[in-house]
């Protein structure tokens, strides 16, 4: 049973858009069921690529001094025809197959490449936190220490930082209790600044403002703030913030092709804002866990937040500490809820001598001023 295939026959005698014919393939020749029937031996046929997309099969041959051509009528017929024809006996058929395959390979690889890129970008966006964690984990402790030291150097230019003395020792006494067993070597500093603020520099440098010491009513509150800042260091938040900003900046650069300083600043602001909310909430909860781990009372955290919220209400002006720590009321609620859910029976209050600390701070800064 020979299979018949629909095709179009082109020759000078036929209409220029081809004559529909039926043809079949024998062991040695192509038969075109025309009147009279055409019998074309395989060794006379030359296969070529045709059509707009170069995916058509064209079979060319010479007969009676004229050029003849046959092309399958549609893609279905073309598949049948290609399956029937012997590749080895027809000139150019192997090349025809190779070129049609290579064209589809090019497009497949283009699609796969684009799809992979999209997937990778999607994955990075989706698992952004993990990507950030992973990148941060590739930064060695030495590098972090270098960063921390350089930041500290730039902060310490005016001699407004206390590095030793009774006050620093008192802060360190509470702080070191929290950081026992840490991979970081912590340094505790007091800044000559009346705003209620404390901040952490990578590699374990924690700076507490004079204003915060004044505002805190008990050592529990100081311990809570320190626990919060310690967790910023332990979780490498500022490092991740730097990576985050660098990442956003490079994306902006890639997308816009050229990023001016203004764009960079906006990108940094937006990303830092978004980043800080996550990070502060994380540092709060982890800070509470840290306090619990070291059997220290945790009530100082919500009570200190309350104090800041009141201050904000009274002054109608944002204290510096609040501006970088948004949604204070939310944080009070969250920390209170956490304490309620995780009761700590053996926790004891932290102790300090506030008047002695403040006196020490006052005299030392006065001395520095005189030296200047």
């Amino acid at each position, binding site marked *: 049973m020979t299979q018949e295939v629909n095709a179009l026959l082109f020759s000078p005698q036929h*209409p220029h858009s081809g004559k529909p014919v039926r043809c079949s393939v024998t062991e040695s020749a192509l038969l075109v069921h025309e009147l009279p029937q055409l019998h074309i031996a395989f060794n006379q046929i030359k296969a070529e690529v045709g*059509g707009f997309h170069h995916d058509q099969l064209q079979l060319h041959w010479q007969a009676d001094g004229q050029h003849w051509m046959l092309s399958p009528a549609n893609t279905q017929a073309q598949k049948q025809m290609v399956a029937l024809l012997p590749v080895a006996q027809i000139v150019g058929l192997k090349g025809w197959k190779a070129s049609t395959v290579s064209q589809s390979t090019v497009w497949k690889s283009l699609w796969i490449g684009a799809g992979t890129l999209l997937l990778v970008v999607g994955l990075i966006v989706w698992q952004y936190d993990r990507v950030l964690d992973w990148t941060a984990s590739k930064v060695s402790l030495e590098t972090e220490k270098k960063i921390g030291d350089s930041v500290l150097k730039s902060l310490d230019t005016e001699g407004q930082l206390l590095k030793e003395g009774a006050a620093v020792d008192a802060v360190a006494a509470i702080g070191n209790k929290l950081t026992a067993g840490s991979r970081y070597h912590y340094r505790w500093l007091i800044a000559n600044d009346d705003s209620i603020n404390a901040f952490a520099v990578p590699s374990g440098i924690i700076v507490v403002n004079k204003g915060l010491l004044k505002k805190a009513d008990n050592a529990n509150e100081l311990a809570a703030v320190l626990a919060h800042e310690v967790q910023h260091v332990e979780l490498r938040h500022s490092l991740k913030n730097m990576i985050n900003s660098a990442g956003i900046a490079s994306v902006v650069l890639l997308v816009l092709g050229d990023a001016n300083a203004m764009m960079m600043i906006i990108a940094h602001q937006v990303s830092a804002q978004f980043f800080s909310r996550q990070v502060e909430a994380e540092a709060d909860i982890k800070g509470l866990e840290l306090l619990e781990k070291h059997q220290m009372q945790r009530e100082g955290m919500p009570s200190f937040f309350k104090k800041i919220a009141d201050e904000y209400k009274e002054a109608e002006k944002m204290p510096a500490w609040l501006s970088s720590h948004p949604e204070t009321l939310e944080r009070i609620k969250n920390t209170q809820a956490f304490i309620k859910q995780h009761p700590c029976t053996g926790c004891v209050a932290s102790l300090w001598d506030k008047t002695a600390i403040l006196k020490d701070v006052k005299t030392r800064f006065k001395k520095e001023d005189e030296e200047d």
Partner: protein
Amino acid sequence: MSPLQYSIQGSDLQYIHITLQPNEEFIAEQGAMMFTDPSISMRAIMGDGSQSRLGVIGRFWRAFKRSLTGESFFSSVYKNTGITPQQIAIAAPAPGSIIPINLDEQGGSVICQKGAYLAGGVGQKIELAFQKRIRVGLFGGEGFIMQRISGSGTVFIHASGALKTIRLSSADSLKIDTGCLVGMSHNVRYDIKYTGSLKTSFFGGEGLFFATVSGPGDVWIQSLPLNRLSSVLMSAAITGRGKGSMVGKLYVIGIILFVIASLFIGEKP
């Protein structure tokens, strides 16, 4: 259905003069109408008006793809609502020529350059024909997007310059300057060919590649692609802007010479 009665008028700025029988319809691209008889009604349709099994969304998507081929999102259908034959004229949007193509003679479809379609019968589809061959898309002069016009009856395409139809047999092929190809039958193979040597490509003025087409089928070639025409007009517009520019240049040169001369004169005393 009786064949469309039309005549193409004008030499370089052409229009089609069509006689529509009662109830006969004709589609033209947006804003191409020049004049009609009073009994011809006009309505706008999305895309080419063909139905889609996806309903409105499918038709919208088709119209969108069609708009990528340089056509407008909507087209206008003109219908003779009277009882006597009525006249309508459709004008070409730019200097050039209009060519009628009988799709039935072309095996049902032709492939044209972007924006070539001007007008045609109802039921003809204008679709996006994406150039799958990357080197042809990049260097063939027609880009990656062309349009496939399929259906039956007569379709009118338009291109700038004079339009030449060349009929290729299955043994023929032709080298064309890239950008001059307007359309071809769907059987025609379209490829590019290196001009031969670096010297030729730099100084021959034809660029690095020729477009090559091989039969069987018809190809339509334009003598002056629109971008070439517009660059000629543009440069003429710039140089022709200041008519006394030569005098102005001489004036400036005179001032410069005077300043230089005054430097030397000033040194003498």
